[in-house]
């Protein structure tokens, strides 16, 4: 377990990719584990394809406030084209860990520093496992490579709260597949 009291994750995706659900899965998982957590979307009208932001906080202590996450420990990008919007990287620190849906290391690593960078072709994983480009569970697998406090098994268990039957099975598969394929640099 990290010595830090609190972990913050900021999610950037597009409407329909499941960024909000991913944020909730991680928080739910932490809460089921007995930790404290909070997850909320940056609320706006729901439109497919529009940029979506969501936040997750994990903590060993109760979380009282609901401030948006300005300087995330983890920045998770579900659609790499969002890296072209300057706002996506707002507040990222030199030690922020970047997790991105991309088959190659993202361009941005050439121009600025991150703590670590994890990349995965989550769209490909989602198409092969779920059959649709809903990349949230695949990107979770990549995040788990570098996330403290929560393990792969924890996430696989908490997916039960969000999916059932066939959907649960394929989403679990997406997480595991992405976990195995994700590259950390």
């Amino acid at each position, binding site marked *: 377990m990290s010595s830090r009291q609190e972990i913050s994750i900021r999610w950037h995706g597009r409407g329909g990719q499941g960024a909000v659900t991913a944020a*909730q899965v991680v*928080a*739910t998982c932490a*809460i089921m584990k007995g930790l404290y957590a909070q997850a909320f979307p940056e609320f706006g009208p729901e439109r497919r394809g529009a940029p979506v932001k969501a936040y997750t906080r994990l903590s060993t202590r109760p979380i009282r406030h609901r*401030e948006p996450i300005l300087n995330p420990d983890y920045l998770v990008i579900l659609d790499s084209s969002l890296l072209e919007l300057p706002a996506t990287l707002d507040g990222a620190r030199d030690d922020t860990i970047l997790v991105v849906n991309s088959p190659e290391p993202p361009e941005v690593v050439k121009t600025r520093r991150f703590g670590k960078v994890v990349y995965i072709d989550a769209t490909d994983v989602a198409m092969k496992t779920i059959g649709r480009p809903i990349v949230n569970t695949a990107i979770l697998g990549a995040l788990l490579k570098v996330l403290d406090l929560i393990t792969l098994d924890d996430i696989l268990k908490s997916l039960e709260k969000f999916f059932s039957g066939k959907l649960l099975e394929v989403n679990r598969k997406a997480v595991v597949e992405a976990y195995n394929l994700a590259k950390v640099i």
Partner: protein
Amino acid sequence: MPRLALTSNYATAYAVKMCDVDVIPVYPITPQTTIAEKLSEFVANGELNAEIIHVESEHSALSACVGASAAGARVFTATCSQGLMLAYELLPIMSGLRLPVVMAVPCRALSAPISIHGDYIDLMVARDAGWIILISSCAQEVFDNVIQAFRIAEHRDVLLPVMVAYDGFLMSHTIEPVEVPDDENIVREFVPKKREWLYLDVDRPVTMGPLAGPDWYYEIRFQQVPAMRNAYKIVKEVAEEFYKKFGRKYDTIELYRAEDAEYLMIGYGAVWGFIEEAVDRLREKGVSIGGMRIRLLRPLPVDDIASALRGRKGFIVIDKALITGMPVGPVFSDITTALKIANVDVPGISAVHGVGQRTMYIRDFVELAEKGIEMFKSGKIPRESIYLGLRA
């Protein structure tokens, strides 16, 4: 007690299920809709034996609440914003008929311009319709307040409807840990169905809501005055009993690091967490400040507010609602009135933040406190609200 990961809306739905509500008339409105969705799911799954009435408007939803409650059913509904405004006509009817309906209000801004986002203007506009109003500050409290609300509403010395309010989106859609009893009988024992209000019964005929002329209207209406006085007492009693059974403590107001504080920052709803964090940061800098939140807005706990503020050097109220025509925020007005009634003289500053869900940062509260304390010290206290987060 198992911990679930719930939004405040889902916490509401779980509490309603556990209270074994009979009738739920609802009409969807953002950000309330997920309450109705979850309750529909509970009913469809057979987890809750209740009648969900899908109506064509909020006015109809609350009208159906009147009918169902008048028939003796335990009734719940939820709405906010434009829905609450459309249904407003029913609010004083329900308090006047003394129907113990419980309504969740995930508070949202009012049009125009159209906003689906959270602030408390809808609740503040509906403050004086004769309902008891509890404002919650986290999802756990939402769950706990809904349960307590049925006990308070249905108490024979009260018999008034209750609103359980909280921040739209910032709470209604935020997942947090909530302790939920695994055996719902524990909750049902806490809120037994006693049906002590007058309901329509062929064996005991009554007339409800007839015309009252100037010879009787005043006396009938006045009965709500002692009922509200009683409500204050019952809110405290129920909180005490709740604490004994569930181990979580509530009161009409809550204080944070206030014992020796020269100044208090006051808020309600989700703002409370920001105040607590800001107080910690200010205390680290050696500032003598504490926090206070209003949990019971109606009946206003005049004496509790006054005794919490007596002897302080100043207070700052953050209202998450923009009211025009009054130079200060709505809860600031309430608090200054309470102080005047109790003959407590403490200077206060009104601030407004989070309007239409304008983003709030902890640093805003820290800066406000520092600026406010300077004002108290110099005696230059503004005669109008300080508007935080507003672009010039």
